[in-house]
C-alpha cells in the first residue's frame, strides 16, 4: 500500500471521514484546530454535517443530540476544551450513546501552554465528569496509530453504546509522517433501534435520558453500566511491549514519550543495559494484569515511568498494577518540555542502581 505524508490533525480528521462520521461539532483551540478546519471543508463535500459550535461545551451537546438520533458523531479539542466537555461526556455515557472524542493534549493546568502535554490522563481515565462511568481511551504514539484508532473508535463506540476517547499529545497532532490508509476490520454492530429518529409508525416513543429519580431504578441502571464496563475491560484492553523478555529495567510510557523511550532502549542496550518498554495502548482499560505479571518476573529489577506531566498521572496506574513488587521511579516534565533520550537513559541507570 502506498504511503502518504500527512499532518497528524488532518489525518485524524480524514480518518473520521473514512470511518463514516456523519457529523462533526468542534471549536478552535491550539493544537487541534486543524481538525475542525479540515472537516469544515471536507464534511460538506461528502454531504456530511459540520458545525463550528459556540464553545466546546456546546459542541459536546451537539454530539449528544446527533448521537442520540442515531448518527456517527465526533468532536475534538485540547485539554482546556476537554475540561469543558466533561458535562457532555458523562451525560453521553449515562444515556449510553456512541461518539468519538479526540483530545490533542497540551500542557496545563488551567490555560497552561499550547505545547504538548500528558496531564489529562486522570481526566480521561478517572472520568472528569460526575458519576460512575468509563470510556475506552486509546493512546496512539504515532500518526499511523492515530488514524487507525480514530477509525476503530467509531466501531468501539457503536459496539458498546459508549463514548470512546482518542488521546494524542499535541506533537502527534502537529507533526507530519508517512502513513497508510489501512482497511480497518469492521465489527458486527447492532442496529440503533433505540435512537430518536422520529416514531415513523413505531408503536412507542424513543427517549434519550440520563435521569433516574427512583433509587432502585438508578441502582439498576448503574449496575447495567458496570456490567458493560466489565465487558469492555475484558475485551478492549491493549498494550505493546518491546524487549521485555529479559529486561531488568522496564520503562512504562505512552504516546510521544514512548517513542522517545524506544530510542532510549537502543542507547541503553548499546551500553549493555537490559531495558524494555511496556506501552499501554488503552489507558482505560489499563493493562494491569499484563504489567503486574511482567513486574513479577525475576529478571525485572526496576520500573521507570516517563510522562509529559509534572508528577505523573499514569504512574498511579503503574503503581496499582505493579502492587509493590518492584521499585518505581519517575521522570517527567510539564509545559511541553520533552523528556530527552539522554535523560531517560540517565534516569534508567539511576533506577537500576537504586534497585540493586
Amino acid at each position, binding site marked *: 500500500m502506498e504511503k502518504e505524508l500527512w499532518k497528524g490533525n488532518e489525518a485524524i480528521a480524514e480518518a473520521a471521514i473514512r470511518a463514516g462520521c*456523519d*457529523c462533526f*461539532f468542534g471549536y478552535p483551540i491550539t493544537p487541534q484546530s486543524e481538525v475542525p478546519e479540515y472537516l469544515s471543508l471536507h464534511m460538506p463535500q461528502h454531504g456530511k*454535517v459540520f*458545525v463550528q*459550535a*459556540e*464553545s466546546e*461545551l*456546546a*459542541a459536546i*451537546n*451537539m*454530539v*449528544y*443530540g*446527533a*448521537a*442520540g*438520533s442515531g*448518527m456517527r*458523531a465526533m468532536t475534538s479539542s485540547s485539554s482546556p476544551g476537554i475540561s469543558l466537555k466533561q*458535562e*457532555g461526556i458523562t*451525560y453521553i455515557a449515562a*444515556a449510553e450513546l456512541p461518539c468519538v472524542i479526540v483530545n490533542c493534549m497540551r500542557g496545563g493546568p488551567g490555560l497552561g501552554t499550547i505545547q504538548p502535554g500528558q496531564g489529562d490522563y486522570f481526566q480521561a481515565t478517572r472520568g472528569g465528569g460526575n458519576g460512575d462511568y468509563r470510556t475506552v481511551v486509546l493512546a496512539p504514539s504515532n500518526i499511523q496509530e492515530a488514524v487507525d484508532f480514530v477509525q476503530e473508535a467509531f466501531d468501539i463506540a457503536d459496539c458498546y453504546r459508549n463514548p470512546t476517547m482518542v488521546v494524542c499529545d499535541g506533537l502527534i497532532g502537529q507533526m507530519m509522517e508517512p502513513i497508510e490508509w489501512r482497511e480497518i476490520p469492521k465489527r458486527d454492530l447492532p442496529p440503533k433501534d433505540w435512537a*430518536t*429518529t*422520529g*416514531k*415513523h*409508525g413505531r408503536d412507542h*416513543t*424513543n*427517549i*434519550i*435520558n*440520563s*435521569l433516574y429519580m427512583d433509587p432502585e431504578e438508578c441502582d439498576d441502571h448503574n449496575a447495567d453500566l458496570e456490567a458493560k464496563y466489565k465487558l469492555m475491560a475484558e475485551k478492549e484492553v491493549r498494550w505493546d511491549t518491546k524487549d521485555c523478555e529479559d529486561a531488568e529495567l522496564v520503562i512504562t510510557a505512552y504516546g510521544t514519550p514512548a517513542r522517545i523511550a524506544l530510542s532510549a532502549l537502543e542507547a541503553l542496550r548499546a551500553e549493555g543495559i537490559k531495558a524494555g518498554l511496556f506501552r499501554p495502548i488503552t489507558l482505560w482499560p489499563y493493562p494491569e494484569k499484563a504489567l503486574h505479571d511482567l513486574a513479577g518476573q525475576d529478571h525485572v529489577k526496576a520500573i521507570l515511568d516517563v510522562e509529559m506531566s509534572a508528577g505523573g498521572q499514569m504512574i498511579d496506574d503503574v503503581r496499582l498494577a505493579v502492587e509493590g513488587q518492584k521499585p518505581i521511579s519517575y521522570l517527567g516534565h510539564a509545559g511541553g518540555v520533552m523528556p530527552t533520550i539522554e535523560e531517560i537513559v540517565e534516569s534508567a541507570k539511576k533506577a537500576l542502581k537504586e534497585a540493586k
Partner: protein
Amino acid sequence: MAIVYQKSKGLTDAELHYCPGCNHGIVHKLIAEVLEEMGLLDEAIGVCPVGCSVFAYKYFNCDMQEAAHGRAPAVATGIKRTHPTQPVFTYQGDGDLASIGAAEIVHAAMRGEKFTTIFINNAIYGMTGGQMAPTTLIGQKATTCQMGRTKEQAGMPMRVSELLSTLDGCVYAERVCVTDIPHLNKAKKAIRKAFEKQMAGEGFTFVEVLSTCPTNWGMSPLKAKQWLMDNMVPYYPLGVIKETSAEVK
C-alpha cells in the same frame, strides 16, 4: 355525538406531575395539538430541559431527548442538522434558557438553526424551589433576593424575545400567554406559525410564553393569572416581536 374537545394524541397517558394550575400542562398540550393537527407527530423530535419540565419526555407522544441544563439548543442543533426535514423543538424554562443556556440559545438563533424553541417565562426558578431567574421582576421576591430584586444587585430582567430578535437567523419571535381563552388561542396560533416557518425552512423560530408559577409566587393559580397580567405583561409586552416573511428573505 361529535367530539368538541378531547385530549390530544400528541400527549401520552402519563399523569402530569406539575403543580395545580401550572401553565406547563397548558403549553404542552398546545404544542401536542399543533403537532397532531399538522400531522407531524411521527416525525417530531423534542428536547426537554432541566427544570420543572425535566420529565416532559414522559408527556409528549414523540421521540424526545433530555438535555443537560441550558444545552437544549445545542442538542437540537445536533438533531436538526442531521435530520433536516423533520420538525425539532426545544422546550425550556427561564433558568435553562436565559441563564445557564444563554450562549446556546443566542448562537442557535445566530446560526438560524431551523428548530422551534418554546420558552416558558415564569420569572422564577420553579424546580429548585423559587430562586431568582434572569426574568424575575424588579421588586419581586425570590429565595435568592428575599428583599425583592434590585437593579443594583442583579440588573434589570432580561427580555429574551427582543434580544434574539436582533439576530438575523431568528425569523420569528412572539410573546404570548395562556391566562384565558383568547390569549390561549393566540398562543396556539403562534406555536403553529413557528412550526410552519420551521417546516418551510425559514430559520429559527421562538415563542415566549409568559407563565404562572403559583407555588413559588406564593399564590393560588387564579391570583397568579392576575399577577401575571398586572405585573409581567407591562414589562414583557405581548405580541409579535419579530416576523420575517419568506418573500422579504
